[in-house]
């Protein structure tokens, strides 16, 4: 079929390394091989992605998992029934603080630094106490959205280090590509964001990575492929082709041999519009954590697995729901609704040859929590209520 006659799928995305499945599918023509044409649409904010997806200016989007739940549950204004047939990768987030804040903490702790990244928020606890005693302004930290995994990771890390994210610091939201600029301008003291915007601050010598998603919740979900349920229902065959093209793209992106080509592709002006070397550190799972120091291997820092990792198991949604419950963003009793958003029928249909490997995904997610609280998708309420610092009711 000539390319012009293929069904066009407009795919919204934000300039982040994990938009790769959509970009790779288009750039390598994996979409055409599946008989569809993906049209990537870069947008400046998650709000714009949400609005354009909800009001049919896009067919699908590279989306925050939590925001997808929020849309479905009607939080923040409007309701749009959603469907997630694929998770778009894993990891990629890091918590960065300004070099100045790190030095302030180190001085307060008389040079005693915490090397265990999962525990390192305790260094900020020292700053919080000192500033409060001196009547100084509180720390200002940013994530990318209230319903983002970044917000949940930043909050969990702070809480585990003895810093109450609502009482002890000022949390705000800054769009990912503007994070480094906000840190440089001194508008914020630190942030949690996806790659390449953590590496950029380190490469520019203004930020220092304190913890990564891999140190906190390595198997928890990250971006998802989000669709309107009404569109997905009416276009089952197209959705299946879209997912197949993205899965093929993820398999390609997961190959170490393709990292250089992937970094070049993402660095282009239509996508991340940034230096390929900055992108590469994350792709190699060897980010530079401290300005001027060598890159350091961090297992699972950022990965695009194939079928296993993209499999939209219900626990991914329930994990996000548990975070929303913990921080008082939603009422109780949405477990079934949320599980239904994460729809495994498409992946089951296209991925028989890899079946079996993904059944452990939920179990892996529960294992080895950095905060000692094991997640159980069957008991969301019990899970978040075990945290000493929580907002839910």
């Amino acid at each position: 079929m000539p390319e012009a006659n293929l069904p066009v799928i407009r795919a919204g995305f934000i300039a982040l390394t994990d938009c790769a499945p959509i970009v790779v599918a288009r750039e390598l023509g994996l979409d055409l091989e599946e008989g569809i044409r993906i049209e990537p649409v870069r947008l400046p904010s998650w709000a714009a992605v949400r609005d354009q997806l909800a009001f049919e200016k896009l067919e699908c989007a590279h989306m925050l998992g939590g925001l997808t739940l929020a849309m479905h549950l009607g939080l923040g204004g409007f309701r749009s029934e959603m469907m997630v047939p694929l998770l778009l990768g894993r990891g990629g987030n890091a918590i960065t603080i300004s070099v100045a804040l790190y030095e302030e903490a180190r001085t307060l702790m008389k040079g005693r630094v915490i090397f265990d990244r999962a525990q390192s928020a305790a260094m900020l606890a020292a700053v919080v106490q000192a500033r409060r005693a001196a009547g100084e302004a509180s720390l200002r930290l940013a994530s990318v959205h209230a319903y983002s995994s970044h917000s949940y990771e930043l909050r969990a890390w702070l809480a585990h280090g003895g810093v109450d994210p609502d009482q002890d610091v000022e949390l705000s939201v800054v769009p990912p590509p503007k994070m480094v600029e906000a840190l440089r301008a001194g508008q914020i003291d630190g942030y949690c964001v996806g790659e390449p915007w953590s590496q950029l601050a380190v490469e520019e010598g203004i930020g220092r990575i304190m913890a990564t998603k891999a140190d906190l919740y390595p198997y928890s979900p990250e971006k998802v492929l989000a669709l309107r349920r009404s569109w997905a229902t009416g276009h089952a065959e197209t959705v299946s082709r879209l997912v197949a093209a993205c899965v093929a793209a993820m398999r390609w992106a997961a190959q170490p041999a393709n990292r250089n080509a992937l970094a070049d592709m993402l660095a282009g002006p239509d996508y991340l519009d940034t230096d390929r070397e900055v992108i590469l550190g994350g792709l190699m799972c060897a980010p530079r954590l401290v300005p001027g120091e060598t890159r350091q291997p961090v297992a699972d820092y950022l990965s695009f697995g194939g079928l296993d990792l993209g499999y939209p198991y219900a626990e991914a949604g329930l994990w996000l729901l548990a975070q929303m419950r913990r921080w008082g963003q939603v009422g109780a009793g949405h477990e079934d609704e949320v599980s239904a958003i994460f729809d495994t029928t498409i992946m089951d249909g296209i991925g028989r040859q890899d079946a079996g490997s993904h059944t452990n995904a939920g179990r892996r997610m529960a294992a080895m929590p950095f905060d000692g609280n094991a997640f159980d998708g069957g008991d969301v309420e019990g899970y978040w209520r075990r945290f000493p610092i929580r907002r839910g009711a």
Partner: protein
Amino acid sequence: MAGNGLNILVIDEDPARAALLEGALVEAGYTHVVTLRTTANLHQRIVAIEPDVIIIDLQNPDRDTLENMFQVSRSVKKPIAMFVDQSDDDAIRRAVEAGVSAYVVDGLKKDRVRPIVEVAVTRFESFSQLLRERDEARTALADIKRINRAKGLLMQYRGITEEEAYSMMRRTAMQQSRKIVDIADSIITAFELDAGLLGDRHHA
């Protein structure tokens, strides 16, 4: 007047569009309209203005920051939510199409907000139309310049009159079912290539 008492905040980085919208709102009877061209110190400005309705360009990169401010900040006294009238899906669809997003104070009657959003949508639409027309005019002007240049080259190197040069181009365009400006481009490219080759030979 419909708008009496409502504080309207317009946030738009495009000064021309912001002025257009502010003028239209005032004309429609809304007397309390404040326009911000940048989102610098947005939080303090919103606390000071206490808007009932905020109109912001859908593509503004600071919308996530703005929405979060409404959700969590204790200093923004009036709770603000995104304006979505589920009973009037078409109106919202049109707003998204036009690139308008609106936020309103909770509890504000939809009937009072709808005309404001309507004014914004209309102005955004006519502004895009203006931009399109301006771009078309620019393209047309650029086309004329290129046609004139090709004509000049033909006159200079073939020793023909302006009229002959133009009719030669028009004839070729008709024969090949192409636009006359495309023929002009081919002529310019051919002459530039020729000049380049001559230059190379000269240096060799």
